[in-house]
């Protein structure tokens, strides 16, 4: 009896195992058919900068409608050893601080440069984020303690508008100033600018892109923003009902969903343009300090099927299926060689689907990742994507 039962159990177990194996095989084949954009670093892009120029913390990147790549960097933080030729007197033949705004053509040649303090506007103490809008104007934020303004220029660097005044920020319910704004996105349909606000405030602000007039703003989950100090992020704690600083991006998709980088909370919150909360997605939730959700960009197909997320703490870019917001794969790793990052801070995509990244802290580079078409996903973490690998 016992033996018969044992035999029956054994057969049952075999059947169960065979079934499990089939399920595993099916899963494996389903995984093999998952497709995602594939990228390779272009180690020779951009071309060497002219004039012995060096770049400081590269704190924003954007692509215009001619596929020119624009960056903003912190020239003011370049030290005496690195920018030795910018000292008075110079202590070496190299190097010179490049102007804070640089424009590269698609071949990687610098074709424009400007920026910095000037009469008529308040250049940020710590510039942060750059966006070329659909009219071809250039927006720049700032994240130093006093920075409460957003600036708008022509592509040639001619001043157009300043919204907010340095030192005048009054918190997350101020309707005239920002609190250390991180990034700007301009919605061509409504001619509205979305401001990720920011390092001081805990909100998204929507303004008229021509007049700068505040239209609406909201906090996490669409709540009224509250500047109470939340303390450090704790992955085990209940989800914070407010953003943590910095609120680092606010980008609108073609189908009208606003993706907000709640960086230290390791989450993307998704809203309708009126501030209605839709859902949230958590990423690498054991990431402490700087957090995992730094900046996003959409793939260039009209449906924007994929969303790219730059994680400057784990040093990778995640590729999401935007409809499900599932991570399909990721690429990159930490390091100073091509295709690696230290603090990958900002991300943008050109019309051909190529990705551009900039790195802050001591990364200090603009890098290009060439779009190689869709490919089956074979690895969750691809590591450094060198050509021909």
């Amino acid at each position, binding site marked *: 009896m016992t033996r018969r039962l044992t035999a029956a159990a054994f057969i049952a177990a075999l059947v169960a195992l065979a079934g499990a194996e089939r399920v595993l095989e099916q899963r494996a084949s389903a995984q093999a058919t998952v497709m995602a954009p594939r990228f390779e670093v272009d*180690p*020779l892009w*951009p071309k*060497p*900068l002219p004039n*012995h120029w*060096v*770049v400081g*913390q590269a704190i924003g990147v954007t692509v215009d409608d001619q596929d020119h790549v624009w960056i903003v960097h912190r020239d003011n*933080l370049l*030290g*005496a*050893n*690195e920018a*030795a030729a910018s*000292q008075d*007197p110079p*202590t*070496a*033949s*190299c*190097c010179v601080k490049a102007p804070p705004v640089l424009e590269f053509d698609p071949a990687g040649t610098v074709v424009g440069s400007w920026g910095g303090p000037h009469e008529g506007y308040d250049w940020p103490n710590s510039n942060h984020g750059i966006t070329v809008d659909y009219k071809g104007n250039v927006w720049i934020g700032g994240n130093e303690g006093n920075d409460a303004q957003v600036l708008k220029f022509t592509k040639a660097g001619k001043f157009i508008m300043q919204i907010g005044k340095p030192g005048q920020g009054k918190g997350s319910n101020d309707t005239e100033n920002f609190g250390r704004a991180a990034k700007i996105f301009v919605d061509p349909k409504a001619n509205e600018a979305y401001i990720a606000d920011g390092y001081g405030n805990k909100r998204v602000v929507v303004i008229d892109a021509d007049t700068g007039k505040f239209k609406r703003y909201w906090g996490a989950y669409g709540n009224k923003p509250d500047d109470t100090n939340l303390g450090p992020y704790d992955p085990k704690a209940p989800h914070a009902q407010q953003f943590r600083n910095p609120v680092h991006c606010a980008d609108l998709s073609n189908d009208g969903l606003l993706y907000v980088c709640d960086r230290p909370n390791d989450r993307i919150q998704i809203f309708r343009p009126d501030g209605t909360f839709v859902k949230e997605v958590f990423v*690498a939730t*054991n*990431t*402490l*300090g*700087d957090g*995992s959700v730094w900046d996003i960009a959409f793939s260039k197909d009209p449906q924007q099927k994929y969303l790219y997320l730059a994680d400057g*703490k*784990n*040093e*990778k870019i995640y590729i999401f299926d935007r409809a499900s917001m599932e991570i399909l794969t990721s690429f990159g*790793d*930490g*390091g*100073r*060689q*091509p295709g690696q990052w*230290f*603090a990958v801070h900002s991300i943008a995509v050109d019309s051909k689907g190529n990705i551009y990244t900039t790195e*802050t*802290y*001591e*990364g*200090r*580079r603009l890098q290009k990742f060439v779009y190689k078409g869709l490919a089956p996903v074979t690895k969750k*973490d691809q590591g450094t994507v060198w050509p021909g690998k």
Partner: protein
Amino acid sequence: MGNHWLLGSVTGLAVDAQDHIWVVHRGYDSFTARTEIGLATTPKTAEDCCLPAPFVLEFDSAGTLVNHWGGPGAGYDWPVSPGGIAVDGKGNVWITAAGPPEIPGSGNATPARAGGAGRAGGAGGGGGRANAAPPKPQDAHVLKFDKTGKFLLQIGKAGTVGANDSKDALNRPAGVAVDDAANEVYVADGFGNRRVVVFDATTGAYKRQWNGAGPEAPFASVTCVKLAKDGTVYVCDRGNNKVEAFDKTGKLLKQAVVSPTTKGSGSVWDVALSRDPQQQFLYVADGHDQKVFILRRETLETVGSFGDGGRYPGTFYAVGSVDVDSKGVVYTGENLEGKRVQKFVPKGAAR
């Protein structure tokens, strides 16, 4: 390198007889704990990146990491900060204990760096580890290991700082070279002292020294020492922007100023000799002008240079180490926030 390992500030690079590239770097203390090495802090602050690589790394000529070791162990004082590295004819590996770099205006000294991030061991360090530990004794010694990292010999002792006339103690030696035939080791001593000092390579016994290019021309700093096949001893006198050539007794043979207008930390950070039989060329790593100069060895005249400042391939930040393999390939190491090893392929002689 795998394992999400990061290279820290590179202080030394040497190519051995098999054309393997040996690299020593400053490890944990050269990283910004809060932002750069989230897997090495307590608690961890990242899920996937990154960790300091081991201090000593051996790459084959294809660039694959084939061995690694280094760090504190029994019987010797691992440096606060390693300096130069050399591989002798028997395959033994020599490393100097050079102390942290003192480069004015470097990232190490910029309080605003990393957006308020601290450095382990410095003000505001986020990692906790080095902050909590008492300061280590000052680097004042040279270490010898076999190629697998087994300890063989220590000359000098951490915390026992010797003056320029000491016969058994050093002060932040920067570079080292071995004369295999004579079984002598030459030490560039260095960042603290201002001399070249020669010891027995097996016993570490003091043999001789010299303190400059003559009584009227003391060294301003001694950041490298290299030996040519013909017995000429080359010294980096970084603070004087000078390469100086001596015989093995310290008699000055030749000297040349490289990049005379360079101020700050100086132009002559490291020197390497080409591997052709005549060793026709000297390569000078200039971590302040961010380039590598090429000198004709016979005359010490500068005949060319390559490189520029930057974080991109072929550009440098604080290029402080240089060596050449048997095929003429030049390898460079970058200190401070450069943190890279790069390879430059020879394209034949050109005008």
